[in-house]
């Protein structure tokens, strides 16, 4: 039973434009959410996170939005750069639980 879902397997965006990645979850106990970025043959790298007490967290070109009522979060990348081409994973954990539940990932391709 997949508790974290990334329904778009891929996204293509032009360099300089905004990339929007979406993630939905079903477990109402989740209270901490993370985005990881993964290049081929490398491990996932932590990108940005958000706690359920917030609805937005920003770090440079990356912003994560959380809509708890809809059980939905999104990652915005502005402006998109060629180096952003990678697989992005959404992950979530419940309070006091160390395990992360991951989505299947979205492959982002930034076109020049």
């Amino acid at each position, binding site marked *: 039973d997949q508790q*974290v879902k990334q329904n778009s397997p891929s996204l293509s965006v032009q360099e300089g434009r905004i990339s929007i990645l979406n993630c939905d979850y079903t477990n109402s106990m989740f209270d901490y959410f*993370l985005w990881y970025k993964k290049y081929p*043959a*490398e491990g*996932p790298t932590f990108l940005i996170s958000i706690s359920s007490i917030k609805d937005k967290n920003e770090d440079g070109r990356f912003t994560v939005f959380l809509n708890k009522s809809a059980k939905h979060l999104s990652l915005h990348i502005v402006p998109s750069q060629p180096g952003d081409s990678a697989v992005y994973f959404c992950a979530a*954990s419940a309070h006091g639980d160390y*395990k992360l539940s991951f989505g299947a990932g979205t492959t982002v391709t930034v076109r020049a």
Partner: protein
Amino acid sequence: GAGVSQSPSNKVTEKGKDVELRCDPISGHTALYWYRQSLGQGLEFLIYFQGNSAPDKSGLPSDRFSAERTGGSVSTLTIQRTQQEDSAVYLCASSWDGSQPQHFGDGTRLSIL
């Protein structure tokens, strides 16, 4: 600084053989996790170690899988009598005291022929 180190980076073996995968966490991280990623899937939790506590083995898919962590540092994941469905990338992560975020190694790509 040194990140999470995993070895080997690639392993090809015949069905029925045993394999050992190694993980060296970030120095000072007391929590260590194993995940696996099958083709086209997200990461699947396997096992968690925290300090001297009993590990959480709830994610291990069968009794052919086992893991240990010696001296609170290096961990070894062992798969006995490998099957073709064991083919995946096995990822290790570590963190401070079970908190987030977890920091991942580059994984071991396991292929069972």
